[in-house]
C-alpha cells in the first residue's frame, strides 16, 4: 500500500485553477520532488498535503485514510507530518534546543527524553555545540540545519520541504543538497520536496514529478526524466535540448537532412505522422570533415551560426540546410570551430526521444 496518495486533486482560487487533477502515489520511505517553474502549483500541492489548504476536488490519503477532501480536511496538527519552510520558520524567541524539541514537547514526551533526542539529532546535523544559541546568532546554513533537525526529530509520517535551499548561497546550496539526501538515506522518511531547481531535484530525489500550470507532466526517476522526457515542457525544463520536427514515411522517419528508421525511435504507442523529437546538445557531435561512409557514422553537413565559450564547454548554434531552427551543440573546449565554418554533425540517434 502506498504511504501517501493524491487522487485527482484540484485546487481553484476563484476562476484561477492552481492545481488540476493531480495524481501521485508515494511509497513508504520514498523521496519525491515536485519540480516546476514558479506558479506551477507545486507549493499549493504541498500545502494541501500539509493540511493548510483543502482541495476543491479530489482526495489525499495517508496510510489509506482520507485526510483531505473538499468538504473537510484534517487540520495540519493532526497529520503527524513535518515541514521545512522556505524561510526556515525558526522561532526567534526560542533557542536551538527549544526549537528542535518543540514538536516532542507538543507530543507530551518527558523532559529527559526530549533532551536526549534533541541532543542526538543535533549531533546528526552537527549543531551540538550551538544548542543554547538563539536563531539570530546563527548563519543561514545553520538555521537550515535547525529546521531539518526540528522536522526530523519528531519522526514524521511524511516530511515536506518547501524550497528549503532557495535562500542559501550557491556553494552552501550544493552542500545542503547532499546533506538532505544523506539524512533521507539515514532516516528513510517519506518525503515530498518542492523545488524549482532541477539540479536540486535530481540530486535529492528518488522520483521527480514535473509540474506545469497546475498539471503533472511526468513522474519519473531523474535519469529517465532527463533521458526520456515525455513532453515538450519536460524536455525543455529539464536541461537544455533541441527539438526537431520530422515526418513518418513508411519505415523511415525523415528529418531535415537525415532520416532514421521507425524502430530506432523510442516511442510509447504508435508513431504519428508528424513526429517531434528531442535531442540533447551533448548527443550531437561535430567534425571538421565528413568522416565518410566507411567510418559507420552518418553525418550531415551544417554550418556554425553562433558560438559561445563558457569555459567548461563550447556552446555552438549550427544550422542544417533547409531548416530555419538552429541546433545547439555542446562540444569539448578543444573542439574549436569558427563562425560560418562548414562542419559535419553526427546525431546520436539512440538518444532521440519522441515527444508526445
Amino acid at each position: 500500500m502506498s504511504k501517501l496518495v493524491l487522487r485527482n486533486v484540484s485546487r481553484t482560487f476563484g476562476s484561477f485553477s492552481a492545481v488540476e487533477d493531480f495524481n501521485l502515489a508515494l511509497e513508504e520511505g520514498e523521496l519525491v520532488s515536485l519540480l516546476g517553474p514558479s506558479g506551477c502549483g507545486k507549493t499549493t500541492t504541498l500545502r494541501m498535503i500539509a493540511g493548510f489548504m483543502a482541495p476543491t476536488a479530489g482526495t489525499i490519503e495517508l496510510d489509506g485514510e482520507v485526510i483531505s477532501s473538499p468538504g473537510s480536511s484534517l487540520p495540519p496538527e493532526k497529520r503527524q507530518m513535518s515541514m521545512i519552510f522556505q524561510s526556515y520558520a525558526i522561532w526567534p524567541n526560542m533557542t536551538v534546543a527549544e526549537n528542535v524539541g518543540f514538536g516532542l514537547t507538543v507530543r507530551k514526551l518527558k523532559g529527559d527524553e526530549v533532551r536526549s533526542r534533541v541532543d542526538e539529532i543535533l549531533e546528526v546535523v552537527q549543531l551540538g555545540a550551538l544548542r543554547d544559541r538563539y536563531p539570530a546568532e546563527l548563519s543561514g546554513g545553520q538555521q537550515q540545519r535547525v529546521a531539518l533537525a526540528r522536522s526530523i526529530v519528531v519522526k514524521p509520517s511524511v516530511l515536506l520541504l518547501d524550497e528549503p535551499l532557495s535562500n542559501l548561497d550557491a556553494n552552501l546550496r550544493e552542500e545542503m543538497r547532499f546533506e538532505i539526501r544523506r539524512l533521507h538515506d539515514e532516516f528513510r522518511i517519506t518525503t515530498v520536496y518542492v523545488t524549482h531547481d532541477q539540479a536540486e531535484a535530481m540530486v535529492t530525489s528518488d522520483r521527480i514529478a514535473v509540474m506545469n500550470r497546475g498539471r503533472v507532466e511526468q513522474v519519473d526517476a531523474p535519469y529517465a526524466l532527463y533521458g526520456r522526457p515525455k513532453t515538450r515542457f519536460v524536455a525543455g525544463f529539464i536541461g537544455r535540448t533541441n527539438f526537431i520536427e520530422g515526418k513518418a514515411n513508411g519505415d523511415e522517419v525523415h528529418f531535415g537532412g537525415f532520416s532514421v528508421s521507425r524502430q530506432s525511435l523510442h516511442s510509447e504507442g504508435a508513431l504519428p505522422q508528424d513526429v517531434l523529437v528531442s535531442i540533447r546538445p551533448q548527443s550531437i557531435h561535430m567534425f571538421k570533415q565528413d568522416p565518410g561512409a566507411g567510418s559507420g557514422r552518418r553525418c550531415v553537413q551544417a554550418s556554425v551560426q553562433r558560438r559561445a565559450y563558457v569555459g567548461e564547454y563550447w556552446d555552438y548554434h549550427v544550422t542544417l540546410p533547409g531548416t530555419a531552427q538552429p541546433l545547439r551543440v555542446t562540444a569539448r573546449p578543444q573542439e574549436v570551430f569558427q563562425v560560418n565554418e562548414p562542419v559535419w554533425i553526427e546525431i546520436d540517434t539512440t538518444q532521440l526521444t519522441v515527444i508526445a
Partner: protein
Amino acid sequence: MAAAPSAFGQWWRNLDKSAWVWVLAIVVLVLLVVNPLLRLLIVSFQQPDTGAYTLANYAAAYGRSRYVDALVNSLILGVSAASLCLVFGLPLAWAVSRTDMPGKNLVWISILGTFIIPPYLGAVGWILLAGPNAGWLNRLVVELTGMEKGPFNIYSMTGLVLVTACYSFPYVFVFTKSALDLVSSEMEDAANILGSGQLRTTLSITLPLVLPAILAAYILVFLEAIALFGSPALLALPGRFHVVTTQLWQFFEYPPKVGVAAAYSMPLLCITVFLFWLQRRVTRRKGYVSLTGKGGERRPIALGGWKWAMLGYCLAVCTLSFFMPMVVTCQAAFAKAWGRGFSLDNLTLDNLYFTLFENTLTRNATLNTFTYAGSAALIAIALALCVAYIVNRQLVGRHAGDLLSFLTMAPFVIPGIVLAIGFYAAYTRPPLALYGSAWILILAFATRFLPIAYANSNAAIRSINPELEDAVRILGGTRFTAIRRVVAPLLNRSLAGAFILVFIPGTRELSSAIFLSSINTQVLSVLLFDKSDEGNFEMLAAIGLIMVFITVVFILIGFRLMGRDFMLRRTAA
C-alpha cells in the same frame, strides 16, 4: 483499514476549534461598532415613547435658531482653530525639520508636553490665565498699564479657538514634519541652482511637496475641533454660546431626548466621514507617494541671525500651549486659593491629598480611571489582534476581511460624543442593559480607541511570517499553541506599546464618558468636569495634575519600549 468514522465525527475531528474565537471576535466587533451606529440611526427616526417612525426628532433638532446657531458656531470653531493650528504648527515643523535653529530638543519636549495635556485641562489653565477680570494675564496688564479692565476674555469664541488650537497643533506639527523629513535637500538645491532664493525655494518647491500632508493635518484638526467637548463646555457656556457638542449634551438633560440628540448628531457624523474620506484621497495621491521615495541627502538650512527669531517664535507658541497653562495649573493645584497668587502661606497639598485619599468619590474615580482604561486597552487590543489575525491570515474571504478591517477602523471617524450617544441608544435597555455598569464605559472606551489598537496590531501581525505559525501546526501544535508560544512572545513588546497608546487616551477620555458614567462609575475626567460647576479650580487643577502624572509615567514606560517618538508617531498617523 479502520472503519470509516461517521460524517459528524469526521467533521468534528477536522474542525479547526479556533474558529469559535474568530466568530466571537466578529460578533463582538458587530456589537461594539455596528450596533451602536445602527441604533443611533434608528433612534433618530423614532418617537421616544411609542417607537413609531417619525421625522419629529429632526424637526425638533433643527427647528430652533439656537440649535442651528450651535452648528454654525462649530463650523466657525473648526475652521478658525484649524487655521490657527497651521499658524502655530507649520513654522515649528519647518524650523525643527529643516533649519539649524538651536534648542530643537526643548521645542520637541514642549510639543510632546502639549500633546500630553488633556485639552480640557488646558482650558482650565487658560481660564486661570485669561479669565476676563481675574486671569493672571489680565491682572498683569492692569498692573502694568493701569487700565481699568484687562483685554483678554477666554470665555469667548476667540478664546475657545485659541485653546482648541493650542492642543491640536501638534498634529499639524507631526504631519508636516514627517513630510518635510522626506524632502531631500537635492530638490531644493535643484531650484537654488536655477537661481531661486531660499525663501522662494521654500515657498515654491518645499511647500507644495508637503502640501498634501498639511491638508491632511488641516482636516484632522478641523475634525478634532468640532468633536471636542471639554473645552467648549468649560469656555463656551460661560461665554454664553453653544457648539454642537455642548448642545448635544444639553439634549441629555432630564428628560434625555436621545432621539433629538441622535438626529442632531447626524451632521457631525456626516461631515466627519466625508472629510476623512477626503483626507484619505488627498494622502493617497501620487505626488505624495513619490515624496516617500528616496530620501537623498538632507542638510539643515542656515538661518543666520534669524534662527534666534525662529526659536523665539517656537518658544512663544509653546509658552501659549504648554508653559503658561502648566505653571498656573500647578499653582492652582497646590494653592489654598489660586487668586491669592504665589506665596508660601498659600501653598498646600490638601487639594491633592483630598482628591487621592480623602474623598471617596475622587478616590474611586482615580481607581475607576485606571481600571476602565486598562480593561478597555486590553479588550481593544485583544479584539484588534483577533481581527488583524483574521484578516492577515485570510481566515475569511478577502471581501469579508476588507469589511472587518473597515469596521475596526470605523470608530476613528466617529466623534466620541456621537459614539457615546450610539452606545446610550443601544445599551440602555434590555437585552443588553449595560448602562450604569462599568462595562458600558469600558466597552465605549475600547471601541473609541479600537483603531489605534488595530493599526498597531496589524503592523505587528504583518511583521510575523505566517510560516512561523505553520511550523508550529505541522509539528502538532494547534493554532492556539502557535499564538501562545510564538505569536504572543514575538509581539509582546509591540503589544505593550499598543496597550500604552490605548491606555493613555483612555485615562483622559471625557466626551464619551460624560454620557455613560454614573455615580458609581465615575472617572477622573468626568469628575473634573463635574467639579467645574462649583468653580473650584484648585480641585480641577489637582485632578488634572494627577491625570498628567499618570500619563507621563506611562509615556516613560513607552519610551523604554519603543523609543521617544512613539506617541506622536503612532497616535497621529
